[in-house]
């Protein structure tokens, strides 16, 4: 098949999956936070509030797009566009699985593979600051300006520890292409310990992983680093003056950035789509076991319903899980689905940590935030980088 058609199909698939994930990530976040705080979360629109994202999208599209009279119109309109564009571009270098073969067509799962993939992600995520900074400045509003300034300062500060934390696994793995990075993490020490970056010899990158995740929280403006939109002091921060789809663009950008950094963390530190233990110990049956387990749980709760409609909804989920479990046992589908399962599981786990922390931690004060970046995170990332370099240099052949 010709390259252009294949690329268009892949783009359509990736875009559809990304957009759906974006919308449902928000639903999952609301649900998880609600359950952490002993509430039930959205449940009016559709079963268990499953159609809530759709309702939100319709609401945001049909709302009136106000442009306040006192703003710098060009930059005001440009800012959400910039934010969402640079947030969505970076997904193009993320690989989701190995090179696969469907009916004679060989293709890699993922849009493209740059030899400078990691640098590309760094560059593009650095450009994302413009959206927030411009939004804050062009709104011509004190709260928005303060939010924009805080955000720029925060993103510039946290980019340093993030880049240093990214550099140390690259030293160990010795490549910048995501596909090769994953390929170099595909072995097992003693036959069962995966050589993911966080366990990789000669220097395990577990500290770099933790620093990266913390810096990623700050880069995506998530709690506890959501100073740019601190509600109690800045109304809504940089997007105070935005409404309808322009507001939704910032929202989308934030969630897209979350997904991207989770993907990068999974690829660089957790071995991408490599299973956590080798196939000969049965790692390829894990997905089926998980889905059968969830099906059994659903059937049990359908038999003892807590609410009247559980008798109808839970069996449906159970049957779907059983079908998925069966699908994961088909040898032909396994080559495609297994990598996707492990990649999705790792990214999902990191995203869950994002949401979990939002439900748990309060917000930093601004000076604490800056002190934390410069006096704690930065030196630790630096020492880790030196130690890694030393270990790599000493063990080099």
């Amino acid at each position, binding site marked *: 098949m010709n390259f252009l058609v294949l690329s268009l199909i892949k783009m359509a698939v990736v875009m559809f999956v990304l957009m759906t994930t974006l919308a449902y990530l928000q639903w999952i976040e609301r649900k998880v936070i609600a359950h952490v705080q002993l509430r039930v979360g959205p449940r009016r629109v559709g079963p268990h509030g499953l159609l809530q994202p759709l309702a939100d999208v319709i609401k945001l599209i049909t709302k009136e797009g106000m442009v306040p009279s006192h703003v710098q119109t060009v*930059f005001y309109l440009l800012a959400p566009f910039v934010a969402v564009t640079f947030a969505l571009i970076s997904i193009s270098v993320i690989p989701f699985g190995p090179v696969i073969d469907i009916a004679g067509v060989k293709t890699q799962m993922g849009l493209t593979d*740059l*030899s*400078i993939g990691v*640098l*590309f992600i*760094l*560059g*593009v995520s*650095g*450009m994302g*600051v*413009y959206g927030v*900074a*411009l939004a*804050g*400045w062009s709104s011509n509003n004190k709260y928005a*300006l303060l939010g*924009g*300034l805080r955000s*720029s*300062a925060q*993103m*510039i500060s946290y*980019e340093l520890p993030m880049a240093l934390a990214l550099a140390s696994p690259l030293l160990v793995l010795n490549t*910048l292409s995501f596909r090769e990075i994953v390929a170099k993490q595909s072995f097992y020490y003693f036959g069962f310990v995966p050589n993911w970056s966080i366990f990789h010899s000669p220097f395990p990158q577990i500290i770099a992983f933790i620093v990266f995740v913390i810096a990623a929280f700050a880069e995506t403006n998530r709690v506890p680093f959501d100073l740019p939109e601190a509600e109690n002091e800045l109304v809504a921060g940089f997007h105070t003056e935005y409404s309808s789809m322009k507001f939704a663009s910032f929202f989308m950008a934030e969630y897209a950035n979350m997904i991207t950094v989770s993907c990068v963390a999974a690829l660089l530190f957790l071995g991408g789509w490599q299973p956590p233990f080798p196939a000969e110990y049965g790692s390829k049956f894990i997905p089926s076991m998980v889905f059968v387990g969830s099906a059994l749980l659903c059937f049990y709760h359908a038999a003892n319903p807590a609410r009247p409609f559980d008798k109808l909804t839970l069996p449906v989920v159970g049957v779907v899980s059983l079908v998925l479990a069966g699908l994961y046992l088909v040898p032909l589908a396994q080559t495609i689905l297994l990598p996707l399962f492990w990649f999705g599981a790792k990214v999902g786990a990191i995203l869950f940590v994002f949401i979990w922390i939002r439900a748990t931690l309060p917000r930093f004060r601004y000076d604490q935030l800056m002190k934390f970046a410069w006096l704690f995170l930065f030196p630790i990332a630096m020492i880790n980088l030196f130690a890694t370099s030393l270990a790599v240099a000493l063990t080099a052949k």
Partner: protein
Amino acid sequence: MDQILFIVFAAIAVLCGINLVLQSHPISSALSLVGVMGALALIYLQLGGEFIAAAQLIVYAGAIMVLFIFVIMLLNAGRERETPRRLWVRWAGLPLLFLFIALMAYVVQRILPPSDEVRFGSYTFGTAEAIGTRLFTTYLLPFEITSVLILIAIVGAIVLARKEVE
């Protein structure tokens, strides 16, 4: 295809550059400069300088220009006022500029012979590995001296900006 893309990016770079000078608001000018940097990065990428392209994007467009815009926002600089210029300066400026550019182009073409390596896809030493190897073997001394120079500049900046302790 390469030619068309090159012309498009070159046109973007030149237009952004002109816009940078014409705009009267500092933020517009700074954003135009970002456009120039981005277009230049894409041209580097096209000519095979992958690492340079990424560095251009990360360092110039992503870090330095963000700092510029940050400072402009912080100082809340307004629209700059135009100072009146003499009549002959206004009329002679543009032709003289073109004359200067033509002269430069002529001189460059005379001095520098056409290189075989400056073709789309023929330059292959721009990867991160190649540049890293060169930096730490052939160009080790200049590289280290530059890093020391930057360190001195940073220390100097801190000393200048530090508040006096009484």
